[in-house]
C-alpha cells in the first residue's frame, strides 16, 4: 500500500517538517525567512519510531535534495519515548530512507 495512510491494517504515517538556515544554531534558526532556508528537516512518524532527515533545500525553486543529507535522527518509541538517544548513526536506515522518499 503506497498511499500516505497505507492499508487499514498497516500503521499510518504522520509527516512533519521544519526549515533551518544553517547546520548550527544561529539567531534566525527558529524562524528563518523563506529566502534564508538552506536545510529542511523531514520527519516520518509511526507509533513505533520517528525518522528525520535534514536535507539541502533550495528556496528559489522549493526543491529538496535527498541526496544531500546533512544529518539524521532515528528514535524508537518503545525504548526511547522521550527521544533522547539518536540511533541514526548506529543503524542502517535504508528502509526508512526509502519509505520517506
Amino acid at each position: 500500500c503506497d498511499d500516505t495512510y497505507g492499508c487499514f491494517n498497516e500503521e499510518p504515517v504522520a509527516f512533519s517538517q521544519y526549515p533551518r538556515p544553517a547546520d548550527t544554531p544561529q539567531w534566525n534558526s527558529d524562524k528563518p525567512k523563506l529566502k534564508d532556508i538552506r536545510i529542511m528537516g523531514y520527519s516520518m512518524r509511526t507509533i513505533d519510531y520517528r525518522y528525520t532527515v535534514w536535507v539541502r533545500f533550495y528556496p528559489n525553486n522549493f526543491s529538496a535534495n535527498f541526496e544531500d543529507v546533512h544529518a539524521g535522527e532515528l528514535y524508537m518509541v518503545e525504548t526511547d519515548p522521550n527521544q533522547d538517544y539518536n540511533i541514526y548513526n548506529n543503524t542502517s536506515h535504508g528502509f526508512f530512507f526509502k519509505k520517506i522518499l
Partner: protein
Amino acid sequence: DDMNVLFIVVDDLRPVLGCYGDKLVKSPNIDQLASQSIVFSNAYAQQAVCAPSRVSFLTGRRPDTTRLYDFYSYWRVHAGNYSTMPQYFKENGYVTLSVGKVFHPGVSSNYSDDYPYSWSTPPFHPSTEKYENDKTCRGKDGKLYANLVCPVDVTEMPGGTLPDIQSTEEAIRLLNVMKANKQKFFLAVGYHKPHIPLRYPQEFLKLYPLDNITLAPDPWVPEKLPSVAYNPWMDIRQRDDVKALNVSFPYGPLPDDFQRQIRQSYYAAISYLDTQVGLLLNALDDVGLSGRTIVVFTADHGWSLGEHGEWAKYSNFDVATRVPLMFYVPGVTTSSVSQGERVFPYRDPFGHILSLVPKGRSKKAVELVSLFSTLAELAGLQVPPTCPQTSFHVARCTEGASIVRYFNASEEKVEEEKNG
C-alpha cells in the same frame, strides 16, 4: 440532519491535559469534552510553527504545497488558489464565523484571515489582542515588564480583560445569534493561551504550588542530537525576565528555578484556557445545540517545556509537533442527546476534579492536514478528492485522508472486547 461545527483551536498547546494522562494538570472541562469524544493520542502538526501549521490544516495541504514555511506569503498568491475548510462549508450553506486566532494574522492570511473567501462575516479579534506583548507584567519591584512568565490581576489589564475572555464572550454571543436565526454554522474559535507571553489571571497559580513543579525528565541537550535539529528558543530570550538572566547562546541552560516557573505558568495558563472552553461548551448546552453540533478540539502545534534543553516549538521533536485532537460527534461518539439534556455543564478547576476517561481512543499516527477531509465526512459533505502528485493548479483537493475510519476501530474498544 445538518450538523453544526464548533472548531476550537488552541495556540501552542501540547497534550498536557488530564485526558492525555497528565497527572498534574487541572483541565476538567476539556476532559469532560474528551469523555464524550474520540481522542487521538498520536496527532501531529505538519510544521511546529503557527502560520505554516494553520494554513496547512485549513487548506488540507502540506507546507511543501502551500509553500509557506515562515510568515510572509499568502498561499492564494504565492502557491495556488486553494480552497479552505471554512470556505468549503460556506459553499455548502453554512454560516462560517471566526473568533480569535484561527488563521495566523498578517501576510499569511492576507491581513484579513482570508475573509471573504473563508468567512461569512468579518472575523472577530479581541480588542485587547494588541496589548499582548506590552509591558503589563508586574515585576517584584512593582514596575511593569514584557515578561515570559506573567500572572496578572485582570482588573489591572488594559480594558480590564484578556483576549481569550473576550473571544469566549463573542463566541457565546454568536451561538445565541445562530440559534435565534436557526442557521447551521461553522464557528471557529482560536484561543491565544498558552502561547507566550504566559499571561493569565494570577489566581490560577494557586492550582500549581512551585514545590509541585519539577524540571522536564530530560532537561539536557542530547549528546547525539545533530546541531541542525536544535531549536535555540530565540523568542523567549527576547522577553524581559529571560533577557535579565543573561543566558548563553545557543544552549543556555536557563536556571533550574526559572525553568520550573515557566512550567508552572504553562500549566496555569492551560487551566485558565480550560475555564474558557468550559464556558463556551456550557453555552452550547444553554442554547440547546449540544445534540446538533460536532465539536473539534485541537492545537496548531506543541511546545517544548525544557525537554532536550529546548523551549518553545520550532523543531521536529514530538513535544513540539504532537497536539491534542478530539472529535465530539453526537450520535457517533456518544448516544444522541435528548432535548434539554446537558452534556457539558461547566466544571470549576478549583473544585473537585472528576476522573473522566475518553469515550474512545485511537493510537493511530494521524495528521492535522487530515482535518479538512475528516470534518467534511463527519458533516455529510462530499469529501474533497486526494490531491495529485502536483496540485498547485487544483483549487480543491486534500493531502490528508479522512481519519473517520479510525473512529470505530479505536484501540480501547478493541482491547476491551479482547479482554472480554
